[in-house]
């Protein structure tokens, strides 16, 4: 293991030299963790996540992380993360599909407990019939927890989002957890080029005293309100404390946006802003949307892409602005419920222009042709269906 030196976060995230490597998404996440000065990582296996926490375990064995263990199950893992972060440590875990749902009661309480942790979510089918395939319906369960939810398109995003998340989540005016989501297998087990910061540089350690809610370590008076069981006093206090606290969580979530601009170049990426028809997509679907836009350009069609990187906070304003003149909006997704389409519809005045789909689920791939069909439909182009025998 190379001796790592602490460098300024802005320098590491924005200026440090980068080296190009051809690695998997799982490696990209672990490489980000390696540079993040993490104190504690807690693992519980589930396909397709396991690869990430295996690699993080190796990093611990090499001395990059101070403590690591395999928990009894996800509820235990996510609860222990809460304990470690309250104790002042910087902590990381990752999970997939059913594991996310098993840990969800604990995870959903992290924002309210002001736990700035980073959680990798390597998506996988939930519900029956069982499958280990990538399907991102699980992200919909995260949307109402209060945490920041980022959705990575590829290995590069996984590296950048993960590394930046440690810094964003610990910002005093944010101080809530961040989920870095990406599709299992499609990204975790496939290789892509990743420009990485030097291995011998790491983020500054967490300073748990730079916090809106101090750690519980008997070094500083604890913040009583959320450590207590406030609901015991009276109904009035209970309503009030819970309401005020939750408002603050969601305000914190919105305040993360400026850091998403600073460190991730903004919550959306736009290709061809003057397009007539837009594909709006996140995660892997954005990669396919990107291809569809390329196809469309080859065919002389005026199609653009909005890649949504941040699902929470949701870039309502930005999306509304980009789509203000769009005739049709196509939202391809890797899940059956169409959570992104709902978000987009809710953000714009002309929700009728949203074509929810194509949707694939159960882990199917998302062929560009499916997106093209929707584009033709939106533009009123009739294509003969070729049947390949």
């Amino acid at each position, binding site marked *: 293991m190379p001796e790592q030196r602490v460098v300024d976060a802005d320098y590491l995230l924005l200026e440090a030299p980068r080296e190009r490597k051809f690695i998997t998404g799982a490696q990209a996440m672990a490489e980000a963790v390696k540079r993040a000065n993490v104190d*504690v990582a807690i693992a519980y296996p589930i396909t397709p996540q396991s690869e990430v926490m295996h690699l993080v375990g190796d990093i611990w064995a090499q001395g990059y992380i101070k403590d690591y263990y395999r928990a009894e199950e996800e509820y*235990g893992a996510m609860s222990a993360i809460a304990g*470690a*972060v309250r104790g002042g440590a910087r902590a990381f875990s990752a999970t997939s599909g059913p594991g996310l749902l098993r840990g969800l009661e604990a995870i959903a309480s992290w924002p309210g407990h002001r736990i700035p942790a980073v959680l990798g979510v390597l998506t996988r089918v939930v519900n029956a019939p069982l499958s280990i395939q990538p399907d991102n319906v699980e992200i919909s369960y995260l949307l109402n927890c209060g945490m920041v939810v980022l959705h990575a398109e590829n290995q590069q995003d996984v590296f950048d989002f993960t590394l930046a998340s440690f810094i964003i989540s610990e910002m005093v005016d944010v101080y809530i957890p961040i989920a870095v989501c990406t599709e299992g297998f499609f990204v975790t087990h496939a290789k892509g080029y990743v420009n990485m910061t030097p291995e011998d540089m790491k983020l500054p350690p967490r300073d748990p005293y730079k916090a809106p809610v101090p750690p519980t*370590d008997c*070094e*500083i008076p604890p913040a009583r309100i959320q*450590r207590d069981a406030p609901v015991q006093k009276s109904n009035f206090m209970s309503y009030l404390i819970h309401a005020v606290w939750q408002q603050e969580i969601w305000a914190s979530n919105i305040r993360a946006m400026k850091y998403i601009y600073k460190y991730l170049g903004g919550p959306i990426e736009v290709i061809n802003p003057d397009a007539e028809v837009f594909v709006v997509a996140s995660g892997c679907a954005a990669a396919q949307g990107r291809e569809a836009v390329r196809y469309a350009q080859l065919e002389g069609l005026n199609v653009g892409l909005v890649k949504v990187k941040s699902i929470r906070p949701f870039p309502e304003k930005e999306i509304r602005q980009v789509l203000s003149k769009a005739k049709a909006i196509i939202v391809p997704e890797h899940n059956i419920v169409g959570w992104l389409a709902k978000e987009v519809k809710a953000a714009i005045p002309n929700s009728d222009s949203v074509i929810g789909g194509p949707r694939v689920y159960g882990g199917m791939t998302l062929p560009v042709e499916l997106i093209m069909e929707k584009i033709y439909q939106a533009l009123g182009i009739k294509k003969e269906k070729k049947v390949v025998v």
Partner: protein
Amino acid sequence: MGLEYVRISPGFEKYMPKDYVDLVQYGQFGKEIDVQQLGQFKELVEEHPMCAGCFMAYFIRVFYAALPKPEDTIVIGTAGCARLSLSQAAVPFIYGNYGDTNAVASGLKRALSIRFPDKEKDVVVIAGDGGLIDIGFGMTMHSWFRREKFTTIMVDNEVYGNTGGQESGMSPKGVQLKMAPKGKQFDKINAVELAKTAGCVYVAKLSPTNPKRIAKTVRRAILAARHFGPTFIHAYTSCNIEYSIPTEKVLEDARKREKQDFGFYEWMTEEVKEFFEEIERKPEEVKA
């Protein structure tokens, strides 16, 4: 730091609430307290909304008086009656989700060990029978298997008190409770044997009939956890509401149960035994 964080900054004494000033001046911080003196010092927990005469509340009162180092102790609780008073004490308290105590404590203790390798910071879980042995069973057991260095205290009222009297795994066989309308169908779980098997280095079982003994047990459990590994106390703390025990009969009931199935029991590893022989011989050294 410990004592530093409870201390009042000079000049602020007159602006601090009287309660707090009393706590620092006449309380337990930085001192050794004999539980026999209960009532003669400012206690860490005073007001709480537990039922009048609740024996669990009494046990918790003695527990706080017994802390070897309250200024460096963090208590972890969960849904259930105990947290009603734990959350009111002048000791940092963490309350997460129902049954998560031993996982939270694992993460917390590890973080504290990383950040303060040379300081003693005691982590103590106090939770109900439902929290530890039903919903949190896996996390309780695994914290022991992993040999996490904190103390777990089960305040066993043999029922889900806080949700209105449902059967728990620790209810005695045959007892009719809510959700057990025909009486409980299986035996009370043997938590003490589980704790020994799972790797606790100090295990005790008691009925709170003797405050001095409660205090000694709590203290031993915390000191053993500090140095050696997981420790467990199984305390009978009756629920006067759900078991219809009139307040004036609570102690009588505790004595009866002590004779029946809650006789004082204490077990520890050889290593822990030697440790106590050493430190309890010279009382001045106990003041860690």
